[in-house]
């Protein structure tokens, strides 16, 4: 697995993972939050993982079209972070049976205002809304290309 940590932008640091190995949703969340912790955006991982799991219990964050957008604001997150993770084999994300091939994990500190939070969520979701963007992301050769696509679409600055 190649991970390219990218310099923090004005608002959101972005990590790109071209090929996730884990296939179960909860394991993916553990792995991604672990990476976020390694990147210095999360101070304590277990409560953030638990919050993400609870968010899934309230309603799946799968957007359809093989994309999921797990997200959380937490006291244990110290700076905003987006993790774009691709899985060629697919992840069993929710009960509808559709596999997820692109996970966009968005984390933010608890003090992030609701309007800023929703704007970020919308912006990140827009990355996967259009088929051409999704196809480019799925076809990207490596993490740097994935990040370039995310920047092109305006999902990250």
């Amino acid at each position: 697995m190649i991970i390219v940590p990218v310099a923090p932008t004005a608002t959101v640091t972005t990590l790109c993972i071209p090929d996730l190995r884990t296939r179960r949703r909860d394991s993916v969340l553990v792995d991604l939050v672990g990476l976020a912790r390694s990147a210095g955006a999360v101070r304590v991982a277990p409560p953030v993982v638990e919050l993400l799991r609870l968010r899934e219990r309230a309603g799946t964050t799968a957007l359809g079209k093989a994309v999921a957008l797990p997200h959380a604001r937490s006291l244990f997150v110290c700076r905003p972070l987006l993790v774009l993770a691709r899985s060629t084999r697919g992840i069993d994300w929710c009960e509808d049976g559709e596999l997820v091939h692109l996970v966009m994990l968005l984390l933010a500190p608890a003090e992030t205002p609701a309007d800023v939070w929703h704007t970020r969520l919308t912006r990140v979701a827009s990355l996967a809304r259009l088929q051409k963007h999704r196809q480019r992301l799925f076809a990207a050769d490596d993490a740097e290309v994935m990040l370039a696509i995310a920047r092109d679409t305006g999902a990250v600055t």
Partner: protein
Amino acid sequence: MSAIAVPTSHGVAHLNDLDRLLVELDHADGRSALKRLGLETPGLAKLRAHRDKLAQSLDPRWLHLYERLHSRYPRAIAAVRAQVCTGCFGTLPPTARGRAQGEEAPICQGCGRILLWI
């Protein structure tokens, strides 16, 4: 800086995160923002049940303090970053950290929130 005994600040912080999530998912603005993204929240009742279970598992003194503050502030707990309370953005005195490491729960003198050093 007032104080009470501290068994687990992380448990109460997690409860605060969960309460904020519940508010977000329950609030009309939050719900409609998520709906525009195609996200529904049919499992809110399960989340509330989990919240109650989590609250019961906490030390009653912590829970009482938290509930009292939570009735005043949506964010009853504030993380401390660079010696600043993220609730009121007031700079904390250098002695605040030492007290937090003791057996007392640190309260911000500026806003009254529970401080969380992580």
